[in-house]
């Protein structure tokens, strides 16, 4: 399932972090990912989202992910 693939990719990219992947519609192609990681500390919001997009470049590129919502957090904030 795409949800597991996305979670695995994010966990590999942010090994320290906590990762949530939500299949928003149940259709397996609209996702909301929430990633909390120390890697985001001191990094601009644009760059934080770039980091997540980079981790998911393969499923974004091949159409596995049709729509992606991203929430990023530092580990200090929550």
């Amino acid at each position, binding site marked *: 399932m795409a949800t597991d693939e996305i979670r695995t990719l994010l966990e590999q990219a942010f090994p320290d972090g906590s990762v949530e992947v939500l299949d928003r519609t149940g259709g397996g192609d609209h996702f909301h990912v929430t990633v909390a990681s120390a890697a985001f500390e001191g990094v601009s*919001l644009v760059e934080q989202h770039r980091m997540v997009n980079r981790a998911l470049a393969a499923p974004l590129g091949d159409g596995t992910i049709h*729509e992606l919502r*991203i929430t990023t957090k530092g580990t200090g904030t929550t």
Partner: protein
Amino acid sequence: MTLREQIQQVIDDEPVAIFMKGTPEQPACGNSLRALQALWKAGAPITAVDVLPDPRIRQELSGLTDWPTIPQVFVRGELIGGADITEELYASGELTRKLDESLGSDREQVVKTVAVAAAAA
């Protein structure tokens, strides 16, 4: 002018630019609509570019910005993000603050659409 140069010109010249699917009158995607609404509520003047007429627009744009998805929102030439960040910045008040700083608080809120196209049709 190449397509990429035209895109860069819109980013550089327009106070607030959004590259979206569809137009402000007829958004073709929920994310484009979310970004648009956040900009509107923050009182932004909006210059919209529809990426749907030619897939190359999106390719060139993403090549320029290192940002894979649509919409993409720019304030005074700077990528502020896609729909999620634009909404987040609006909700925190930061978007309005940024617009006040870069465009002044008495800005006029005009919405327009501009087209970019590959040189050889």
